C-alpha cells in the first residue's frame, strides 16, 4: 500500500498563504497530474506532499500516518522525489548518481548489499541507461540527464514517486521520452506517480487522474475526460479553448484561443 493525501493543509511562504485548507487524496497505483495556472499552488502542494514544506495547519498523510511524525529516512523508503532542475555534482558518473538513490536503504555498515547493486542495475536498465552508466552526467543530453535523475528515484525503490515538472526545458521528443518512461514504471512496477505538468495535452494523454488547482484549493479532480472541458479550463486557467477528441489516442485535446478569437 502506498497512498499520499493532504488533509486540510494550509501552507505558504513568509506571510503569504499559498494553499488554503486543501484536501486531496492521490489514487494508489495511478498517474496523477497536478495542473493549474502559474502561482496556483500546485508545486507548493507537491513540495508539501514530499515533506519539503511543513504545513501551517492540517497534515499530509503517508499511508494514513502524519508524514512529519515519521522518521525522514522511513519516508524516503516509501516516497521518492524529483525536484525541478536538480544539479549533479561535478564529474559524477551516471552509475554513481543512480547509486545515491540507495541512501535511504543504507546504514554506515551496510552500503552495498546485493540488493543495492541489483536495484541500481535494474534502475539503469529500466531507464535505458545501462550503456551510458560510466559516462559523466554533465556529458549527457537534456533528455538522458533527466532519465538519469529518474533512474536515481527508481533505484530508491519506493512505491510512490513525486516529480515537479519533470519535462520542463525538454524538447517535445524528450518530454515524450520521460513521460513514456514514467508510464512504463507505473504499468510495470505499479508505482504511484504524482507530478506537476504544464502541457495539458500531454497531461491528458498520460494521466489517469487530474487534479486541477485554483487559488490554493482543489477546483476539480477526476479522469482527464471529465476534467478537461472548455468551461473548466476557462475556470482554472482563464483561457478560452475548444476541446476536441484526439483522433489517435481518444484523449481530450485542448485547442487554445487567443484574445483575437471568439470562444
Amino acid at each position: 500500500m502506498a497512498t499520499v493525501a493532504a488533509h486540510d493543509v494550509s501552507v505558504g511562504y513568509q506571510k503569504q498563504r499559498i494553499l488554503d485548507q486543501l484536501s486531496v487524496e492521490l489514487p494508489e497505483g495511478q498517474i496523477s497530474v497536478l495542473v493549474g495556472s502559474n502561482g496556483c499552488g500546485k508545486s507548493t502542494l507537491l513540495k508539501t506532499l514530499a515533506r519539503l514544506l511543513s504545513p501551517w495547519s492540517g497534515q499530509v498523510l503517508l499511508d494514513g500516518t502524519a508524514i512529519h511524525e515519521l522518521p525522514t529516512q522511513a519516508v524516503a523508503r516509501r516516497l521518492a522525489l524529483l525536484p525541478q532542475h536538480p544539479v549533479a555534482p561535478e564529474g559524477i558518473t551516471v552509475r554513481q548518481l543512480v547509486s545515491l538513490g540507495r541512501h535511504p536503504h543504507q546504514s554506515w555498515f551496510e552500503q552495498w548489499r546485493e540488493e543495492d547493486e541489483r536495484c541500481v542495475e535494474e534502475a539503469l536498465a529500466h531507464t535505458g541507461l545501462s550503456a551510458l552508466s560510466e559516462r559523466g552526467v554533465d556529458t549527457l543530453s537534456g533528455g538522458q540527464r533527466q532519465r538519469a535523475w529518474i533512474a536515481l528515484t527508481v533505484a530508491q525503490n519506493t512505491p510512490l514517486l513525486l516529480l515537479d515538472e519533470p519535462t520542463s526545458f525538454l524538447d517535445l521528443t524528450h518530454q515524450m521520452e520521460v513521460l513514456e518512461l514514467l508510464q512504463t514504471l507505473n504499468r510495470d512496477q505499479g508505482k504511484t506517480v504524482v507530478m506537476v505538468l504544464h502541457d495539458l495535452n500531454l497531461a491528458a494523454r498520460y494521466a489517469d487522474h487530474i487534479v486541477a488547482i485554483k487559488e490554493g484549493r482543489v477546483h476539480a479532480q477526476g479522469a482527464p475526460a471529465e476534467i478537461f472541458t472548455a468551461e473548466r479550463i476557462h475556470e482554472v486557467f482563464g483561457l478560452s479553448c475548444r476541446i476536441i477528441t484526439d483522433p489517435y489516442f481518444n484523449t481530450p485535446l485542448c485547442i487554445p484561443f487567443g484574445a483575437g478569437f471568439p470562444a
Partner: protein
Amino acid sequence: MAERVLRRPGFSRRLDLAPWRRVLVVVLVLLAVAAGSLATGKVPLGREQLLALFEGAHTSVRIIVLELRLPRLVLGALVGGLLALSGWLFQQIMRNALASPDILGVTSGASAAAVSYLAWLAVPLGAWGVPFAAMIGAVGAAGLIYALAWSRGVTPIRLVLTGIGVSAALGAVTTFVLAFSPLTTTLSAYVWLTGSVYGANWHDVGTLTLWAVVLILPLAIKMRFAVLAALDDALATGLGVRVQRQRAMLLALAAAMAGVAIAAGGAFAFVGLIAPHLARRVSRAVGASQAVLSVLWGALLVVSADWIARTVFLPLDLPAGIFVAALGAPFFLWLLLREAR
C-alpha cells in the same frame, strides 16, 4: 572498471579502486618532497647520513632531522591537510567552488582574535595563549555567521554572503588592532597572519594530531552526508537526509578543523581554497576520495612551501605562508589555462 565489492554479514562496501591509484601518486610525490626537505637546509645532508639514522646515527644529524626538520614537516602536513579538508567541506556544504575558511570569515575570526591577543594579552599572560585565541576566534566567527544567516534554516547562498560580510568586518578589526599596536607586536602578528611552521616541536605535532583524530573521526562516519550535501536540499531531503541538522554538524566540523590548523600554524591563506580544486582537477576525484586527495594536496602545498621558505633564501627562514600562494597560484592558473584550451 576497477571496482571491488566487499560483503560480509552485516557489512558491505563498494570500493572504487581507480581514485586510490591517484591517491598513491600524490602520496609518492609528498614522500619525495618530504625526503628532499629533510635532506636540505642550513646543514645539507647526504643520503647516507639520512639512511644512517635508522641505525642510530651521529647525534647532531639526529637532532637536525628528528627534532628540527621532521616535526616541522609533519606539522606543516597536518596544518595543510586540515585546512584543505575544511575547505573541501565548506565547498561541499555551500555548493560553491569559491568557499573556503579564508573567504568565509573563519580565518578572519581566528586572525582578529589572535592579533587582539598578541596586542593586549601576550605581555601579561605570555604567547602560549595565541592558539587558543585563534581557535576561539575561528569557531566564534563560524557561529556568528551561522546565526546571522539563519532564517528558518540556513541556505548555502546566505551562508556564503554572510561569511564574506563577516570576513570583511573582522579583517577591519585586525587592521585596526595592528594600527594601534607597537611595532614588535605588529611584526610577530604579521608572521602569524602569513602562516608559519617555524620552530615546530613534537609537542605541537602531538596536540594537532589529537585534534585531527577527534575531528576527522566524526567526518569519516558522516562522509555519506558530506557527499550528498553537494546535491540540492530538496533532493537530499527526498533521500532521507535531515539536511539542516547535517549541515550544521558538518559546518561545525569544518570550522573547527580550520580553527585548530590555524591555531597551530597561523592564518595560512589559499590552501583551503585551492587544495580541493587540485583534487578535482588534477586528480579528477569524485565523492569521498575527493576528501582524501584534498588532504594530500593541502599537505603537499604547505610542505613544499615550507621547504622553499626555509632553504631558498638561506640564511633567512621565511614564513611558509608566503610560498603557498606563490607556488599554488601560478600552478592553479596554469591548470585553468590548460583546461580552457
